């Protein structure tokens, strides 16, 4: 009982017992009755054992117990009752399974930029947000089709990629809308680990839904939605998630955040993501010399552009996370580190120290070089 009480009183960002959306709430409503039935059965068995231990203890006078070999009526009863109970739980399970696999009906969300919008603000049209989730070693990629580029395997024949909306580590969603996740796993062709299909990961944001595997060569699906009534002051709520299938050295460091925000904020985020940065020019060398030096380093001897993409610049690497609009995120490095200059420095000094095995294998950077890079990264709003 104490355990249960403590569990309820906890403050855990990935708590499954405090659902923040209809999908996780559905699960919670199924789990709790079954949990309490299990508790009752346990108490019955434990009490029976304790009762026997006390009442039927060997003592003078009861050394010759009646030799009962069985009792057919009793045995049939205690077979049928659990069977019926389990049929009930099984029925609930099957209904729940079909619920989990439902493809949410409704038009997929598309984006109306401010220029075309009636209100003059960027807006969304549609009911269901579709996002493609791709697990990599050891970070999560989020692609918004229709709002930007799709990864190759999701494109229909003849379909062209649109403007880039590829991001990593943070999944932005509008509250009150169903989100349909198409989930898979792969590794870039130029990964330092060599050509390979990737490994199995598991996408889990407990506050909002159960988990779903991300399997190379397969596309799995997960529905989730964040409660809108939880947004009371207009600020987004951030939910924590984590990979839940052992995937190698930094499995523990493959985390992510789900940022649930008002539809207006979400549309503004999309609008920002769709603005294209311009590459830095020599004019910037005078106004922001540190950032310009960082930009040069990024695309030059630092080697960053071989793996990272910053849309609008010559950095088009397809190995590591897309860093366009980096400063719009709150976390980085597999959502292990909060995004701030201090953490960026720690990371750039030695990525392997933060994430053992990380595929970001860079040369040793001097403190000066790190300062320059951070100054450049700070400009990626």
């Amino acid at each position, binding site marked *: 009982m104490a355990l249960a009480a403590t569990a309820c009183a906890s403050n855990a960002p990935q708590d499954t017992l405090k659902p923040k959306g209809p999908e996780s709430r559905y699960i919670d409503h199924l789990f709790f009755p079954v949990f309490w039935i299990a508790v009752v059965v346990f108490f019955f*068995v434990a009490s029976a054992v304790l009762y026997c231990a006390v009442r039927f203890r060997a003592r003078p006078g009861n050394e010759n117990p009646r030799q009962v070999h069985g009792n057919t009526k009793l*045995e049939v009863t205690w077979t049928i009752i659990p069977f019926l109970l389990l049929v009930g*739980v099984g029925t609930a399970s099957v209904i729940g399974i079909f619920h989990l696999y439902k493809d949410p009906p409704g038009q997929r969300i598309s984006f109306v930029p401010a220029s075309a919008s009636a209100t003059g603000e960027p807006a969304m049209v549609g009911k269901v947000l579709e996002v493609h989730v791709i697990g990599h070693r050891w970070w999560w990629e989020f692609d918004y089709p229709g709002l930007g580029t799709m990864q190759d395997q999701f494109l229909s024949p003849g379909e062209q990629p649109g403007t880039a909306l590829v991001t990593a580590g943070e999944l932005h969603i509008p509250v009150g809308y169903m989100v349909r996740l198409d989930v898979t796993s792969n590794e870039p062709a130029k990964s330092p680990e060599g050509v390979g299909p990737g490994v199995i990961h598991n996408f889990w944001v407990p506050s909002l839904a159960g*988990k779903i595997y991300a399997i190379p060569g397969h596309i799995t699906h997960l529905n989730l939605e964040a409660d809108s009534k939880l947004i009371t002051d207009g600020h987004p709520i951030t939910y924590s998630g984590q990979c839940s299938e052992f995937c190698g050295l930094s499995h*523990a460091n493959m985390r992510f955040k789900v940022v649930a925000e008002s539809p207006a904020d979400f549309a503004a985020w999309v609008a920002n993501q769709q603005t294209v940065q311009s590459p830095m020019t020599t004019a910037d060398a005078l106004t922001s010399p540190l950032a310009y030096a960082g930009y040069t380093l990024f695309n030059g001897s630092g080697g960053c552009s071989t793996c990272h993409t910053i849309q609008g610049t010559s950095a088009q690497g397809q190995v590591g996370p897309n860093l366009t609009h980096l400063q719009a995120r709150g976390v980085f490095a597999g959502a292990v580190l909060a995004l701030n200059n201090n953490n960026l420095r720690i990371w750039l000094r030695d990525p392997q120290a933060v994430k053992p095995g990380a595929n970001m294998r860079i040369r040793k950077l001097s403190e000066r070089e790190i300062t320059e890079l951070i100054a450049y990264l700070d400009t990626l709003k």
Partner: protein
Amino acid sequence: MTAVEAVRPTSAPATPPRFLKRPKATDGVVGWLTTIDHKKIGILYGVTSFIFFLVGGFEALLIRLQLAQPNGNILTAQVYNQVFTMHGTTMVFLVIMPMSAAFFNYLIPLQIGAGDVAFPRLNAFSYWLYLLGGAFLYSSFLLGGAPNGGWFGYAPNTSITYSPGHNIDFWIFGLLILGIGSTASAANLIVTIINMRAPGMRLLRMPIFTWMALVANFLLLFAMPVITVALFLIMFDRQWGTHFFDPLAGGDPVLWQQLFWLFGHPEVYILVLPAMGIVSEVIPVFSRKPLFGYPVMVFSGVAIGFMGWGVWVHHMFAVGLGPVATSAFSVSTMLIAVPTGVKIFNWLGTMWGGSIRFKTSMHFAMGFVVMFTIGGLSGVTHALVPADRQQTDSYYVVAHFHYVLFGGSILGIFSGIYYWYPKVFGKMLDEKLGKWHFWVTLIGFNVAFGPMHILGLQGMPRRIYTYSASMGWNFWNFVSTIGAFTIAAGTLIFIYNVRKTDRHGAPAPDDPWDARTIEWITPNPTPEYNFIETPQISHQDEFWHLKYAEDDDGRLVKIGESPDFIQRRARPDEHIHMPSPSYWPLVAAFGLPVIGYGQVYRLWGISIVGLIILLSGIYAWGLEPSTEPPDPEYPEEAGGDHAQHELAEPETQLELTPAAETTDG
């Protein structure tokens, strides 16, 4: 000495070259290395698996030290991944399975009234494969790193691309070596149980432990080939350029999961059925009542054995296999809870109305009943698929399987150790120390694993080497670590008990527990030849029925005293001819790890040497007669294998029948 010349000819047509004389020792190092006696082999399995229990437990303590605090730095990620992989692999393949084998080997022939198993040299071969396979696996720590892909080895993470070292190769070949031993042992024990029962021992008169052992060994026989196939496929992918699990070339990672769990689920019933058998023996003895519903206990065990093949996808409920497949396995998993739950009620029914003696063995058996119930109930919550989408791959599952495997199998095994200790070693383990062992272990176990239910429900995934301080998991992880060290303390108490008993323990009396089954008809410790005369069986719980009858009210009426039935030789100095020890099982077994090293390092020369050792060993084994002719030094053996040996007075009610022949292969 004409009687000697009249002895049956040996099975070999001509005298084969013998560069090694047939060993004769039954003691000392040579005696143990060449033994084919099921009792010695059982002891070997038991001692070896206990040592691996300490090793696996040490690995568990390392894990708990690392996870006691957030951002722990006791172990690096590289080391942690090896430690958690080896903890699981050790506990499943090197502890619980062989510990069950220890009980199977020692007890099955005695419980069915036989002189040994059907194939004694094959039996020794299985043991040596276990020891050498375990050593092979552990040698990896010194040879570049232990297996680090989890005990379940999911592809493609275990492919050569993502696991480039030899770690996984050691895992593959180690498990293949162990698998050969298990499969051979399963076949051996099944043949023994089916063919070598004493006259009158119909299947439904067999002791319940032997029944559960029969089911478990059938499961082994069919499950080991499945994992063997899976291991060959991943080995081909890693070493021979195939792509069974590589979707870039038409393969499928889910295939690995299907094969692994098709093995893996029957495997967990292999792990728990023997302990259920043990507990089903212990509870009736210490309640002075028969097992409630013996036929149902048999049939539920058989049902679990069959149904256990139809639930494996419940390890894959989050894989997205589609609603129909997922529903089918959710329902089948719910249904298998019925025969499992029925057993719990039958154990309660056995204790109810009994006269319960609280020996240590009974403490552990009752602990099993309660702890296994908890694990079984959390299993039912897993069968509820939407809930399992939150629970799977979290610490909630870790809690579940430790409750059934530690709270179940390990507690059951300790119950068996305390119960049969006098039979095996001729001494009684100290009861006071035993009770301390029990309570410290029970409390430590619940403190270690109870909180893991909470951690799982609070979103902590499995198999992570560390976690951040802001997740809300700090407190219960710390508590769990304290529990783990408490279990260690309990284990130390047990070791002390064994040592104290070995040095100062008084000899055990015959039939110390007033038991029910015929292994107790032999003196303690069991003599080398088991039975002087094969018992004639006319009841289930035959020994009990020799001592007690029931009156009309169902109460016991004593009709015989234990000492009347304990089989002692009339002439203690008399030499009884036994099947002969042999070097060849050890020699042949030795070939396999040599082949294994050759394959790990792709050095064909070494593999060929190993193959030669294996084949020569088997060839020599085949040419050697199963039993040497009787020794001319002992004239009383003149009648050959069918010599009659007299029982000591007083006369028993047993019918005199010739000792059962072993059919050695």
